[in-house]
């Protein structure tokens, strides 16, 4: 493994960037898993703020949600509506593609963090990584490998086009870890700047998604271990500052500072009511990790542990999330997606550094290639076995709702499963949109119905004179 020039490395990085972007956009066309929360927690609120119409889920009645993410979506929604874009299906595609594109920031951050970690591993292996040495760009191979890993790991592709706080929180935290890591190799004002950026990003990721907040502890701990107390205080100060900003948003929207934070903690941790939304077995997350890593896990873990002296913050962060969320009764795979980039960076950077300085380069490269192929294959296998939760049908419901909303003669819409309809965000209209109940058919207001072919609701609407006017797979739009 020889040296690389800056120019060729830039070409490599450009390739990673392009492949990451294309693969995330391509994944969008496979209609990945769609969670109703994406609509009713983060798209419906800005919709009702702009139009006055929408459905308020219980979280918005009890004030458990912050307006930060919905308001961010609201900016785009307002702009698109001003440009005449009202079709729900188009709007949905915009937001999914938006987050798919934004998630390309992850492999970029992975390269930077991986390069620093790999250079440290190389130094431990005896390579000369000091400034001015013949190793012109130390750690470049480990960084590149980390970037590829994060760019192509299937679960990260699968969760990329998501309108949930998990995605921006993960991106902010990974970049926060990256800047904190880089600050150790800087001095003076450069180090200060890196730490300030790290603090802001870590804090933003933590406040945006409170269950990710423990991740902020490990970069902070490393600073304290390195006796960089002033920089540690920067991180703490950033956490307070960003927290105050989130608190102010709550004050303006809910009428009380930190209202959504307190309500969230009260509901989930004090009352323990998260369990009402489903209880998963204790080893749920272990099963998830094994499903996506399988035979590649021992290899990846061995690599990560080999470099633990330098990458312990990344590993500890990933492990801490899994451990503490395991104690919570309600578990979903999306809650732990932040562990993947942290683990992959730790593992791939070490693997890259070791291969770079292997005594038997050919054998090392062959092993690495085999490991990567196994990991990729396992990742694809794991994603293919993700619980479907009927997500394909959700697309049909939301597309059918969007289509119905564009009908000029629609005066009211019944939808068999309101939770899967995409709400008024998809409807794009201000006529009533209500979950199906037989009694509502007595009201002539409802002249459209979105139902599943052959269901009880389908039979009921047919008896009331509704006839099919459009089909979306198993979901049919009926009209009277």
């Amino acid at each position: 493994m020889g040296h690389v020039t800056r120019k060729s490395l830039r070409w490599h990085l450009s390739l990673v960037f392009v492949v990451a972007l294309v693969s995330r956009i391509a994944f969008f066309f496979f209609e990945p898993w769609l969670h109703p929360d994406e609509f009713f927690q983060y798209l419906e609120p800005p919709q009702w703020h702009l139009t006055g119409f929408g459905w308020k889920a219980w979280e918005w009645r009890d004030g458990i949600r912050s307006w930060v993410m919905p308001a961010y979506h609201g900016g785009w929604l307002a702009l698109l509506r001003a440009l005449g874009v009202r079709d729900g299906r188009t709007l949905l595609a915009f937001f999914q593609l938006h987050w798919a594109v934004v998630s390309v920031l992850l492999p970029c951050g992975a390269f930077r963090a991986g390069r620093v970690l790999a250079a440290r591993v190389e130094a431990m292996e005896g390579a000369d990584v000091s400034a001015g040495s013949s190793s012109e760009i130390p750690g470049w191979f480990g960084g590149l490998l980390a970037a590829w890993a994060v760019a192509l790991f299937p679960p990260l592709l699968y969760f990329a086009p998501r309108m949930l706080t998990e995605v921006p929180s993960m991106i902010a935290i990974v970049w926060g870890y990256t800047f904190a890591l880089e600050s150790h190799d800087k001095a003076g004002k450069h180090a200060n700047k890196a730490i300030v950026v790290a603090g802001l990003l870590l804090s933003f990721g933590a406040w945006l998604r409170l269950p990710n907040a423990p991740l902020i502890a490990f970069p902070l701990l490393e600073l304290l271990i390195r006796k960089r107390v002033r920089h540690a205080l920067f991180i703490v100060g950033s956490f307070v500052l960003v927290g105050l900003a989130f608190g102010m948003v709550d004050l303006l929207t809910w009428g009380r500072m930190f209202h959504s934070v307190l309500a969230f903690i009260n509901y989930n941790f004090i009352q323990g009511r998260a369990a009402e939304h489903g209880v998963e077995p204790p080893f749920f997350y272990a099963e998830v990790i094994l499903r996506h890593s399988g035979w590649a896990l021992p290899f990846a873990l061995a690599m990560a542990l080999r470099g633990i002296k330098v990458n312990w913050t990344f590993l500890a962060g990933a492990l801490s999330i899994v451990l503490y969320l395991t104690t919570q009764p309600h578990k979903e795979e999306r809650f732990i997606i932040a562990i993947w980039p942290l683990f992959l960076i730790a593992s791939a950077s070490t693997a890259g550094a070791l291969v770079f300085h292997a005594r038997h380069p050919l054998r090392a490269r062959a092993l690495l290639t085999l490991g990567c192929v196994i990991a990729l294959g396992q990742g694809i296998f794991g994603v293919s076995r993700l619980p479907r939760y009927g997500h394909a049908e959700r697309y049909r419901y939301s597309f059918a709702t969007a289509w119905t909303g564009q009908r000029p003669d629609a005066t009211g819409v019944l939808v068999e499963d309101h939770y899967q309809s995409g709400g008024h965000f998809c409807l794009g209209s201000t006529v009533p949109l209500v979950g199906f109940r037989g009694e509502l058919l007595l009201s002539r207001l409802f002249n459209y119905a979105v139902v599943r072919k052959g269901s009880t609701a389908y039979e009921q609407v047919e008896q009331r004179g509704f006839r099919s006017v459009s089909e979306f797979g198993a979901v049919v739009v009926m009209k009277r």
Partner: protein
Amino acid sequence: MDEPRVADSSSVTSGYPSRSRIPVVRLVVLIVIVAWLVGEIRFVQAEPTLETLFPATGPASSNLALFSNGVRLRASSYNMFDQRYPAYAIDGNTHLGGTMQWESATDDATPWIDVSWTRPQQVRQLTLVVDSAQQSTRLFSVACQATGSDFVVKGHGEATRSKIVTIDVTCDSTTAVRLSFDPTPMPMKTVRITEFQVWGT
């Protein structure tokens, strides 16, 4: 931790394409940020009116407020959690309760609802069917709006639960009729109307 300092090659750690493309990337990012900011300002300033323009979907009805006449319906608020849309008040059903009525929001102290038409109407009477679940008697006023003018109050009434209230009014060349409910003392009580009918000549 005693690792040697790694050479700071931040020019390569940017993760960006080549230097010559960076200004283009920065320009694109700047445009995107500005576009979002423009949208965000519009979003923050939005104060929408709850308004639905119904298409004419049936034969003309003597009840001028019926949705199928192709009216424009506006309201100050509605109960979003239980989906008690304003449209229920003009759906033609006078005997149905449950969720099929308009209910104002709990934080709406002075709810109102109005219907309007593209062509002026001669309005002579209003009928209000008050839902059995309405918790308190609410005083209301009836106002009519002629083309190019403001609303002018033409009558008053009391909306008591389970009652049908009929108000005689004389509104010539009217393009809109509004019911405005007076505030009640706390705790806030919502208005729940099963049907709102407007009769003309």
